């Protein structure tokens, strides 16, 4: 059998991660929670909520602003996910871009996407899968794999 083509696999994982992330982001807007709020947080099991229950620590405050108060991270994640999907599927207008042909750019994009996703409660799995996809694109770039030239890049016959 043939060789394992990393960027083929990376594409499928990346689509998987991005669909997951868009879905997670929507639920993240409905149920807002900072994933890492347990760091410095404290659970009061004696009293009932709202006095008792879980209270995030003071170091979480800036993150609570952009996740719980305003779901900025979630919206950003959805946008990242949608953009990656457009790039990976690919949307017709993406095929012509140099971004489409670059594995390094995709790896960077996926690392950024995963970095954003890892902050909110629902997004951590998407961050793991996105990192796997980024790693696979990195392998593809290292092994010197090439993106198949998009047919549209060659120009229309009539235009020649």
């Amino acid at each position, binding site marked *: 059998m*043939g*060789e394992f083509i990393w960027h*083929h696999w990376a594409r499928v994982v990346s689509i998987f991660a991005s669909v997951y992330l868009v*879905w997670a982001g929507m639920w993240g807007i409905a149920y807002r929670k900072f994933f890492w709020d347990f760091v410095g947080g404290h659970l009061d099991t004696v009293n009932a909520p709202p006095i008792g229950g*879980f209270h995030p620590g003071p170091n979480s405050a800036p993150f609570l602003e952009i996740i719980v108060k305003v779901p900025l991270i979630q919206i950003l994640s959805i946008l990242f996910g949608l953009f990656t999907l457009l790039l990976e599927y690919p949307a017709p207008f993406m095929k012509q871009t140099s971004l489409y042909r670059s594995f390094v750019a995709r790896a960077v994009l996926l690392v950024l996407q995963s970095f954003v996703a890892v902050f909110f409660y629902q997004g951590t799995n998407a961050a793991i899968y996105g990192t796997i996809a980024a790693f696979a694109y990195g392998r593809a770039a290292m092994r010197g794999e090439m993106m198949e030239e998009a047919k549209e890049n060659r120009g229309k016959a009539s235009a020649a």
Partner: protein
Amino acid sequence: MSESWFKREILTPRRLAFNVLFYGSHLALFAYGWYSQETNTKLSALNGLKFSVWTSRGAGLVLAYDGGLILVPMLRNIVRIVRPKLSWLLPADENIWFHRQVAYSMAFWAMVHTTAHYVNFINVERTQVRKEIALHIHYQEAGGITGHTMLLLMVLMYTTAHHKIRQQCFEAFWYTHHLAFFFMIALYTHATGCFVRDSTNPDYISTFPFYSTQHCLGYESWRFIIWPGILYFGERIWREIRARRTTELSKVLVHPSGAMELRIVKPSFKYKSGQWLFIQVPDVSRFQWHPFTITSAPEDPYVSVHIRQVGDFTQALGERLGAGPSVVASLTKAAMKAEEKVDDAAPAFDRGNFVEIDANATTRPMPLVRIDGPYGAPAEDVFKSEVAVLVGAGIGITPFASILKHIWYMQRKGNLGSLRRVEFFWICRDAPSFGWFQSLLQEVEAAQTNPDFLRINIYLTQKISEDMMWNIAVNDTGAPYDPLTLLRTRTMYGRPNWKSIYTGIRSAIETGRYLPGREASLRTKVGTYFCGPSALAKVVREHALAASTSSIDFTFAKEHF
């Protein structure tokens, strides 16, 4: 898409029945899972979480169902035994297709279940119905750990099973799919964390299954779904044992077309024609099993497979056997030359000859070979129809080698079942690949006493150069044998017109020319057996089924690889 989704899924009665049963049972289980959670007064504390917990319980039950189903189509030996008895009910040859349907369903319900649980756990943390935080349930309890593990394993298994990757690099798919072992373990232990309980704390006990069913009120679905897992595991062990029985590679023949024929002697190996096997050569690769069609008939004293050196495994195997690409290349070149020289008066039979690799001549002894199988293929049913239309395209001809040989043996014994006529079609792109199969066809053709029984139709679809055309024209006229195949049957050029072929067969049967003495009141079965690319399969199938009338049944069966 030539046919619409609606026509394919709804208007085909068998598919409709499957859809109703498959998706109906899923929805029914989901509804039951939901209902039994919502109405269980013992779980009223959990029911405070409302829709999310009802959804997660329903979807969880459906996932257990899928987890039980997913291994069933992969029980290859059981499927092989069961298939002939149930062929009227289920297309058991579609086992991989069914496996995929279950997998898709599993992915969907996993999404539902996971989403619901994310909501559940955040609400547990907010309402403190249990005194813990969400991440504790996610990453420190059995349910959460196994659940997240299964999701990750699914990502890995599904992505490498994508057809593009599977066809490009089968090993990546094959090895990654063995993560299913850990997936199944995680699935069976998913509920051991006792999340569904009526007590404050999980009620763990020291004996199996390590939680008390008095307070842990899950569906206990693992008790039902573990059996396919155990059967599958047992089957894999059984396959390993069976593969280790005495197997000897007795002969290696290299055909000029580049195909190697391995003749293997394994007394414990019983099979029917049209079946296939897995082969393993530890010298080449310790763990890999590769599927090949059996090309010998059950009556032969050996099991043979024809292998073309196209992939890295088959090439490495060729090297190991002393029949590497260089040897084959020179043979093929010689064969091409012979073909160009057909006009030399010497009968061109030399083209059909093969070279035997002599085990004593090479310094290395024959390698150890293991075979596992046989596994089923629809072509076994050939003897059940009156007219068998065998269609092979390219290398897809291999199962028919066995079937034709088998028919030949049966003919000599005078025991053909209900089979009255055989129409054999071979669609081939280039002339040199006629090579190895041709000697077999010659033998079968020569053995025909009834000229009507077997009709061989060979189509050459390659573009023919002018030189070649004249060459053929010169050698064809008046010669007793076809210049390309050396058969009495003439080769046809271009693609077959399936519509006219099938309507031709139909009208020939109806007028009584085709099957003399056929009872008009009885239904005649014309079975088409196809092996080759799926695009062609679709066309053949369409035309075959379209030819059916009230008294003639046209059926279609396709082999899967």
